[in-house]
């Protein structure tokens, strides 16, 4: 490609599916996901890095899709909220947010759940403080956070049960 050609080929995996796309160099990951692929679960809540609504997992770690260029994701594994349910069954965090009323308007929820997913993969048995710290980059204007923390605690307990259940 020449220098006037401001496009890059991105080969990545999105929610387990391999993709090869030509993207403009200035395309943000959040626009790639929402506009190019049509995965609108990931939300945009601010003009960059303030709110956490756009949080997705890149190679298993939380990242702001609104501050990440799509072209930089070449060779990575991207996971969005759409990937979490397994054949229609909600995952533990989704069940937690449902059971504990962790979502009100729901706008922060996809980012909140992806940040929590990153947290639980790293630390399956978080204290309340770990959860508060782990979700500190995510803002919720509705719940006051208490219900969100309970939702993550619920999910952590479910995951622990599933594990011991499977072992028994």
């Amino acid at each position, binding site marked *: 490609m020449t220098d006037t050609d401001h496009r890059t080929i991105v080969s990545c995996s999105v929610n387990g599916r391999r993709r090869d796309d030509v993207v403009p160099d200035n395309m*943000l990951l959040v626009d790639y996901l929402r*506009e190019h692929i049509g995965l609108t679960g990931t939300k945009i809540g601010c*003009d960059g890095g303030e709110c956490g609504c756009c*949080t997705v997992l890149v190679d298993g770690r939380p990242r*702001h899709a609104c501050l990440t260029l799509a072209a*930089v994701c070449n060779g990575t594994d991207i996971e969005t909220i759409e990937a979490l349910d397994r054949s229609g069954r909600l995952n533990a965090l989704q069940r937690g947010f449902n059971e504990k009323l962790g979502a009100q308007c729901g706008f922060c929820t996809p980012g909140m759940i992806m*940040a929590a997913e990153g947290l639980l993969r790293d630390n399956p048995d978080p204290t309340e403080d770990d959860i508060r710290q782990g979700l500190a980059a995510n803002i919720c204007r509705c719940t006051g956070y208490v219900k969100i923390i309970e939702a993550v605690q619920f999910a952590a307990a479910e995951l622990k049960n599933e594990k011991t259940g499977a072992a028994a």
Partner: protein
Amino acid sequence: MEFMPDFKLHRPATAAEAAKLRADTEDALFVAGGTDMLVNVRRGIEQPKALIDVTAIDDIKSIAEDEDGLHIGAGVTLRDLATNELVQRDYPAVAQAARAVAGPTHQDYGTVGGNLCLDTRCLFYNQSEWWRQSNDYCLKERGEICHVAPGGKRCFAAFSGDVAPAMLVYDAEIDILGANGELRRQPLTELYRNDGLNHLTLEPGDLVTAVHLPKSLAEQPSAYEKARIRGSIDFPLAGAAVRLVMDGGKVANIKIALTGVNPYPQVVKGADTAIGKPLDEDALDALRENVRKQAKPMRTTTVAPWYRRRVVGALARRLTAQLAG
């Protein structure tokens, strides 16, 4: 999608290529994690024709120890810095400062190099395009006057990185790779100048590749603390790092550095007058007053300068008292 300038993205695999590209390409800027640069690009503060992404350079992503000390690549993420056992054990203020940057997601991909080279910040600058436009911009970017000090020709935007002061109290040095391929080592203090418009001494093409923390100061007690609006995420209104060694009830060695209260991260002058004396209340008060005198916050945040000056003195005093035990 809002305003996004059209730019070419380069992803060099070596530091040498990155430095050369940056110098040879018109209107090019480096981007690492992008947690500051891409915010500024999206707001139209920066309108580069090319971005040189440095995250594909594997050589600048590791932390290594040898007999001289700890060598931290500029591409190391703040999370890796904060969780590194050697950093936690030998240079605790550095780990604390990394953990105090923004929120956990930013720490996950924000880098050491990006944190040290962070642009200065101001209430009138870190705003959307329409906000700045309706205010006729300002000296720092496109405008004619400074809204903070309208009479003058200086910019007082505050350096607001958390990690620099913590590294400064350990006499950190940095490696810079120039566009000519030459690698030079210099004290971290020399990366900065007291000018909000142009606070970095880097030439176009200069890439910071590593930070070195000396072995001779390893394990000396230190701490970092900042004041911010929301404890979860915000930039420092004021921050202080202190390294303190006591010997027989007297100060053997002390260094204090500040952030958020000047256009550059600053080592407090005259802190060493405490050396050889006990840290009684009078000595701690004198230390606090000395810090307050050197902090020169301006009206660059929503929080008043007098408060930031008071708080930075209080932080330095409290950390020193805590370290003294």
